[in-house]
């Protein structure tokens, strides 16, 4: 019940296309859903995050869509660029705020 399931494992998108990564969770106590971006040799860096009281959050080319009833959330990267090529992790955190539970990660490659 503590798991966050992420798909796909890997994704290849043409430059300018839309990248979509999906996550699902079971634990209704999760109250915070961040997405992290990780480049090779670096630690995960927060990209964008959402709380369950909103259904969508947009920051530049990055949008999180959140479906509370389905317990699913997704990351959309519009106008994908080669510089977006990285591993993306969805995560969830409970109201006690003591730990992040990560998805398995998606390796995104944007072809120029």
């Amino acid at each position: 019940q503590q798991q966050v399931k992420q798909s796909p494992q890997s994704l290849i998108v043409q430059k300018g296309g839309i990248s979509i990564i999906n996550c699902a969770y079971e634990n209704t106590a999760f109250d915070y859903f961040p997405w992290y971006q990780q480049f090779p040799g670096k630690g995960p860096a927060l990209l964008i995050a959402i709380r369950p009281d909103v259904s969508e959050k947009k920051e530049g080319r990055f949008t999180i869509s959140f479906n509370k009833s389905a317990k699913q959330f997704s990351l959309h990267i519009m106008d994908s660029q080669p510089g977006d090529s990285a591993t993306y992790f969805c995560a969830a955190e409970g109201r006690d705020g003591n730990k992040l539970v990560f998805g398995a990660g998606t390796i995104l490659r944007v072809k120029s």
Partner: protein
Amino acid sequence: EPEVTQTPSHQVTQMGQEVILRCVPISNHLYFYWYRQILGQKVEFLVSFYNNEISEKSEIFDDQFSVERPDGSNFTLKIRSTKLEDSAMYFCASSVLGGLDIQYFGAGTRLSVL
């Protein structure tokens, strides 16, 4: 921009040896975390630490593991007797407030147990 720094970047050790992984969290942060990522797998929570106490630990964080904030700037993870399966990337993270606040991650220490 302030960042979490971890040393060393790569640690090689023999099975059964003790290792200490070091982290310097962002200076005004109060909550500290260790996570690990076995090659090809997801990032897993190990332990959270606040006010010189462990707030929460996972089942991975057994008696072989310990954490310490020995001074005002460092946060360490000790593995008492390393096993082959401890080989992983270990990430330190910190946040200002805890409780759903943003966690900032270091670049990690790659631990290789031979």
